[in-house]
């Protein structure tokens, strides 16, 4: 197919191509979807360690004396309650309560917040935040200054520690430290999108290929695998982590997406607050719920969901779950029906296939001490 617009490339693009990754257009970015086998990459992350290039993700910095006031005003979670070195998952909403994006907010200093946002939304997010800036704060679009590499899996810590003097064990889940990796300045966050322990490492783009190769070398005896977006999707789905454009978008609110925990109505005014307060009072009409296929078939994104033979909702994400040996998915259903144990049917290529709503997350890692 003819490309009217050139695809964007991460600083690791040439590395992916030289390693034989299969590349696809992902929201305008030419990204690796898989290296060897999606399923093998998935298992490497669950059992050992996997390496992801997530440099397409965007970064926005909010600085200045009233940085926290601006971040709190544009997000649903309470940025004011973060400690320095702590991160939180949050929502960037429109006034009507729908998602502009879902983001990670990192507190670097009292007057400096570092936001990690979705690749395809970064320009939109930046404009949204800048337009809402009625405070003494500066908003900077800084995606060009960072590559991001995710090291995920039970052996992620032992892999990364070979390349850094930072004591990784002292970084709690959803905390971060600035230090060096492979001798260069890096931000090391204990965050991820796989349901496993792991780190997301932000470095200067020019350093990314060398660090990528050194991480592969450091994890070699653990069986580290470079992983594509295919495995990233099955991993995040098993862990029931939302994907923008699927579970959440401009017409979906955090309460509908089962993300009420990231809304802090008591923190003061923020964009979307009144719509959410109203929704909380009256209740949501539809809600996200997990399901497992009982019949033969896979309910995929966009497929219709039926209750007792009548159209009632839609699948937002669906896939075989390599760690569970089942076909799983997430779907929207009328709120009263969105409870585990409800028999549903998913329309798979014009055939109604039986499925059942279930508890989520589908996969939860065993807690280590």
């Amino acid at each position, binding site marked *: 197919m003819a490309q009217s617009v050139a695809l964007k490339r991460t600083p690791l693009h040439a590395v992916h191509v030289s390693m034989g990754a299969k590349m696809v257009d992902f929201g305008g970015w030419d990204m690796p*979807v898989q290296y060897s086998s999606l399923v093998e990459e998935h298992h490497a992350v669950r059992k050992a360690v996997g390496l992801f290039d997530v440099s397409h993700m965007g970064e926005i910095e909010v600085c200045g004396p009233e940085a926290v006031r601006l971040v709190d005003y544009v997000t649903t979670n309470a940025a004011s309650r973060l400690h320095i070195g702590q991160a939180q998952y949050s929502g960037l909403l429109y006034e009507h309560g729908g998602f502009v994006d879902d983001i990670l907010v990192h507190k670097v200093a009292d007057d400096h917040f570092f936001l990690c946002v979705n690749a395809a939304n970064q320009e939109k997010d930046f404009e949204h935040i800048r337009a809402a800036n009625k405070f003494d704060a500066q908003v900077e679009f800084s995606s060009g200054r960072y590559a991001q590499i995710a090291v995920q899996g039970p052996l992620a810590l032992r892999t990364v520690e070979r390349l850094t003097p930072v004591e990784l064990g002292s970084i709690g889940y959803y905390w971060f430290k600035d230090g060096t990796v492979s001798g260069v300045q890096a931000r090391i966050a204990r965050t991820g999108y796989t349901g496993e322990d792991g780190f997301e490492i932000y470095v200067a783009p020019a350093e990314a290929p060398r660090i990528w190769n050194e991480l592969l070398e450091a994890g070699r005896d653990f069986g580290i695998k470079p992983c594509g977006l*295919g495995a990233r999707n099955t991993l995040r789905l098993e862990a029931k982590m939302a994907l923008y454009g699927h579970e959440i978008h401009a017409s979906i609110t955090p309460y509908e997406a089962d993300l009420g925990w990231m809304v802090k109505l008591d923190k003061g005014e923020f964009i979307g607050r009144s719509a959410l307060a109203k929704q909380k009072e009256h209740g949501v009409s539809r809600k996200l719920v997990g399901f497992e296929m009982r019949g033969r078939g896979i309910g995929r994104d966009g497929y219709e969901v039926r209750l007792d033979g009548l159209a009632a909702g839609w699948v937002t994400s669906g*896939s075989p779950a390599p760690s569970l040996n089942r076909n799983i998915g997430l779907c929207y259903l009328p709120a009263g029906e969105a409870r585990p144990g409800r028999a549903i049917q998913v329309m798979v290529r014009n055939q109604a296939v039986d499925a059942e709503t279930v508890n989520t997350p589908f996969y939860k890692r065993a807690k280590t001490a």
Partner: protein
Amino acid sequence: MSYPENLRYTKEHEWVRAEGDVGTIGITDHAQKELGDIVYVDLPKVGARIEQGKSLGSVESVKAVSDIYSPVSGEIVEVNESLGQAPEKLNQDPHGSAWLVKVRMSVPDELKQLLSAADYQTYVGAES
């Protein structure tokens, strides 16, 4: 990957091997690589009639579902039942033991419209 000389290929990445008036149909190595880990194969029953260029079934991988377009017209005489239990064979031996169906061809001239191994190789080289 070299594409066997005794197969004829479609631009939709199926192959057919003709022996007398029976054609064995499968998907190409390129197709299985594009799909990735295959988890389901849906095939017609023996006796079903299929038409060149029309869907005869589907292959589903972890990440996508894809139609199989028949390279020739005719009647299904045999189905590779082993794929039901072991669809992953399609990732391992797409030009051999993981054939899909055998068909009694009704329009043998259709074979002439299909690509040779060399032409298919050039085609997938150009496509990617």
